[in-house]
């Protein structure tokens, strides 16, 4: 029998609305955390997962209050304790690791000093003991050369290293519970995999209980022993990780798992309809009723309670769990595989494009010359055919968004040119581009909160391109707006809404509508799904694919998520430090042989399956600048040959699968090496 560290009983937390109603954010949460156990709390934004994690350390956000229930830690109710008493628990007994370590570290204090502060506060060690402890902690979080590391400032570390320091600080008080609020969300794929591995090691070594809050089922699958699924402030599923992810007996989890694109299962995933209800809007019945494909009238009136299923050791809040259990046993997942009609004629041609961010000298500015021997993006040669979806993949700093911006004319290229439909060269200066060329290329941005003017109604937003390019007015304009909105499945009543009144998915649909209103030939998609909730992401991907089939639009799709890219693209170009590493049909890029960097990226992908572990092949280093000579990946390459990689730019080689790889290693050797392990 495991000992319980923390127990939460019937916890309800809420706020008072302007009308004086009590609205619950968390509803009757009862659960417990055992010693040495890692509990993953998963849910979409607004599901109450962070509120629950904060309540676990006795903290309730300003404006919220505890309506009922308790949070027992060492036979004390944390929610009734005074701040003075909580000070002895927070950090010492229960520590928290925030989402963005870069922001939670003080920028003007050295790493060592900040860890020392945590030690002073939480332990009674003497100065010399603390110095030893700092090295020990930095070693524990696998940071190289602890002595020099302690002397650095936060900005001298990479995002992953900062997150490691945050973990070290949290471990300073040897806490019994470690709370992690989306600790890997802002990190690159490879870094994320490394941090998760570290957390697993710490959990094993120290026997600390961990609570891992995330929206990412892939990350949850890798670290947790037990998973709690939250929806609309309720626990809908609570059980061992394997049972939850392999037999998701709640329709929400069932749908969620189906809507995640997976590397092992290429093609467009099924999408879930609707979005999470606003707090307080559900008065009776199941909170998932609106979106549930299994619901019947009973679900509309009665709210299910959390029921324990002995076979699966899982608690579930659903009347239909038996039905689902049978379904998860038999149904193998089916996905739509995409097939695009790619025409032979070339629509966009990038030839030896280089882009520089370097600040130019005064004389060069006068002569309108860009002088930079080592530009951020160099020698990009890509042809895109009409109707194709090309994906640009790489970690942050790989130059993928930079390339997109210069196609759109927002950034000047240093060398090379971009041609549209073979004969029309796209000018570097946006003002000199022909309006028809501007119309032909449209952008969709990552975050619809930023890309839609908050003071415009949907009607005004969509009317912008229609008025600018087609000069539409009056009734004609309105009819056209309604037609465009209809294409993205938004009804007429959305016309007068403001972006703040829409959900994330609806906002992104408006952004898609605005781009399509211009009748473009090419749409540049900059991480269009990464700011969205998982259940919405698939719906937006499906929409984009349908629109493409209707209009024959060409997409250039930038993403860091290889699974998303695999689902939607025909061809993939892998970038590292602004240089192309590999390009080829997407089915083949994901097969070996591939460029060592692609191999590293593929290895780090997290699947929502605890049995598929990421393969960490390369070191977790971040390079600030591309190397002057040789291969761009030389600094991190696990298969580096030697001096040749450092001095000579690798040649392009074409594999039997048809993908081109830029590497010094012979194709056959690469294949042998990669398939042997």
């Amino acid at each position, binding site marked *: 029998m495991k000992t319980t560290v923390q127990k939460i009983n019937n916890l309800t937390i809420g706020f008072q609305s302007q009308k004086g109603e009590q609205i619950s954010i968390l509803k009757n949460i009862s659960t417990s955390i055992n010693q040495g156990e890692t509990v993953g709390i998963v849910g979409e934004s607004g599901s109450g997962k962070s509120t629950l994690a904060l309540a676990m350390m006795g903290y309730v956000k300003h404006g919220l209050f505890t309506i009922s229930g308790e949070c027992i830690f060492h036979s004390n109710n944390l929610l009734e304790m005074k701040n003075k008493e909580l000070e002895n628990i927070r950090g010492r007994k229960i520590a928290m690791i925030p989402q963005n370590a870069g922001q939670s570290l003080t920028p003007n204090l050295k790493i060592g000093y900040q860890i020392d502060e945590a030690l002073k506060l939480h332990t009674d060690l003497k100065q010399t003991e603390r110095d030893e402890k700092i090295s020990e902690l930095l070693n524990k979080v696998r940071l190289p050369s602890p002595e020099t590391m302690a002397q650095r400032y936060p900005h001298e570390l990479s995002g992953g290293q900062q997150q490691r320091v945050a973990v070290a600080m949290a471990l300073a008080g040897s806490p019994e519970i470690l709370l992690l609020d989306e600790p890997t969300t802002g990190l690159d794929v490879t870094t994320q995999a490394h941090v998760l591995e570290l957390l697993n090691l710490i959990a094993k070594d120290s026997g600390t209980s961990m609570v891992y809050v995330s929206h990412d089922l892939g990350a949850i699958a890798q670290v947790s022993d037990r998973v709690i699924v939250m929806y609309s402030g309720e626990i809908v599923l609570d059980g061992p990780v394997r049972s939850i992810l392999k037999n998701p007996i709640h329709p929400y989890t069932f749908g969620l798992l189906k809507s995640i694109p997976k590397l092992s299962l290429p093609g467009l995933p099924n999408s879930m309809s609707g979005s999470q209800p606003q707090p307080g809007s559900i008065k009776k019945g199941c909170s998932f009723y609106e979106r549930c494909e299994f619901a019947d009238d009973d679900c509309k009136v009665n709210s299910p309670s959390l029921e324990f299923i002995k076979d699966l050791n899982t608690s579930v809040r659903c009347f239909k769990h038996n039905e689902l259990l049978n379904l998860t046993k038999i149904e193998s997942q089916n996905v739509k595989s995409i097939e695009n009609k790619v025409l032979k004629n070339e629509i966009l041609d990038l030839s030896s494009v280089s882009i520089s961010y370097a600040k130019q000298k005064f004389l060069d500015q006068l002569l309108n010359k860009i002088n930079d021997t080592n530009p951020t993006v160099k020698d990009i040669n890509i042809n895109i055919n009409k109707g194709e979806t090309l994906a640009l993949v790489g970690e942050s700093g790989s130059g993928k968004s930079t390339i997109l911006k210069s196609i*759109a*004319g*927002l950034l000047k290229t240093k060398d090379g040119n971009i041609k549209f439909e073979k004969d029309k060269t796209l000018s570097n200066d*946006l003002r000199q*581009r022909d*309006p028809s060329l*501007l119309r032909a*290329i*449209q*952008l969709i*941005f*990552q*975050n619809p909160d*930023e*890309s*839609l*003017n*908050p*003071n*415009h109604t949907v009607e*005004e937003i969509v009317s*912008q*391109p229609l008025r*600018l390019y087609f000069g539409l007015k*009056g009734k004609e304009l*309105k009819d056209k707006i309604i037609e465009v909105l209809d294409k993205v499945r938004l009804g007429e009543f959305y016309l007068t809404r403001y972006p703040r009144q829409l959900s994330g998915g609806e906002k992104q649909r408006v952004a898609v509508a*605005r781009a399509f209103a*211009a009748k473009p030939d090419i749409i540049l998609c900059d991480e269009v799904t990464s700011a969205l909730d998982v259940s919405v992401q698939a719906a937006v991907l499906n929409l984009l694919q349908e629109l493409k089939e209707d209009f024959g639009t060409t997409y250039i799709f930038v993403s860091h998520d290889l699974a998303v890219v695999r689902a939607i693209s025909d061809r993939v170009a892998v970038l590292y430090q602004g240089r192309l590493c590999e390009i080829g049909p997407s089915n083949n890029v994901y097969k070996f042989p591939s460029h060592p960097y692609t191999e590293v990226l593929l290895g780090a992908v997290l699947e929502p399956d605890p049995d598929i572990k990421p393969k960490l092949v390369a070191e977790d280093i971040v390079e600030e600048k591309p190397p002057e000579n040789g291969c761009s990946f030389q600094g991190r390459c696990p298969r580096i040959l030697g001096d040749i990689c450092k001095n000579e730019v690798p040649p392009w080689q074409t594999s039997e699968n048809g993908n081109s790889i830029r590497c010094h290693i012979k194709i056959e050797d690469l294949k042998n090496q990669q398939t042997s392990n």
Partner: protein
Amino acid sequence: MSNKKEKQKNIFEKIYEVIKTMASKPSGLIGLIILTFHVILAITSPLYVPYDYKAIDPSLMLTPPSSEFWFGTDSLGRDVFTRTILGGRTALTVTFFGSLIALLWGGSLGIFCGLVGGKIDDVVMRIIDAFLSIPWILAMLLIVSLLGTTTLVLIPALGFFYGKGIVRVARAATHDVIAKDFIVSARARGHSNMSIIWNEILPNVRDAIMVEGAMRWSWMLLGFSSLSFLGFGVSPPTPDWGLMISNARGLMSFAYWAVLAPIFGLSSLIIGINLTADAFAKALGIDRSTKAPV
């Protein structure tokens, strides 16, 4: 056409909403009541003043308040009540139009500088900084003594001096918006700078600029009254609070009523504007207590 009408209806609805929110807090309600009271008084007072504001009667010099002369009389025997309720007219008109001018030129220049950035922005902002370092009252005195004290000089001069601060606020507000993707998106579509300012930036910075303008209004009122006090505002015998305070201040020890009445008028108006501006800012979602405007 219907679109335009709808839009107008929306604007009225929005104004109504904002005023309702402002009045929902006691401080906002008090501010609104004081301000409305002053505005109505300024518009209608000539219709019902009990005496002629110019009428001098040496026999009634410095009479204390009575049922006949509610606020007493001043050193020339003029009725203080009459002069007090008339005294806000010039101040309100001059400063209202002055603030409007300040808002217009400060707002447009600020947005323009924020949008174009670079060298032009640098040069303009340094010039503004240089102007800010000149004590405004000296500069105002210089302008007024060169060009005279007519309203036509005072309004643009005050508008110019109080607009400098608005330039900074408008520029800062524009900088907040300019990095957002919807501006990038408008640029990529190929909209002109004017269209970007009008459609994308203005709706987002309008609130901040308007709140700043309202705050400047009360400052300008104080500034205008100071000018009158120094004898450079309105010329006698036009009733004006600043002038009245200046005239009666020497007699304060035995004829307090002649000073108190205009002081009360001036300070209540300033308090009213300040409370209203604060409530206005809160109703628009700009919290001045946590976020400095500049």
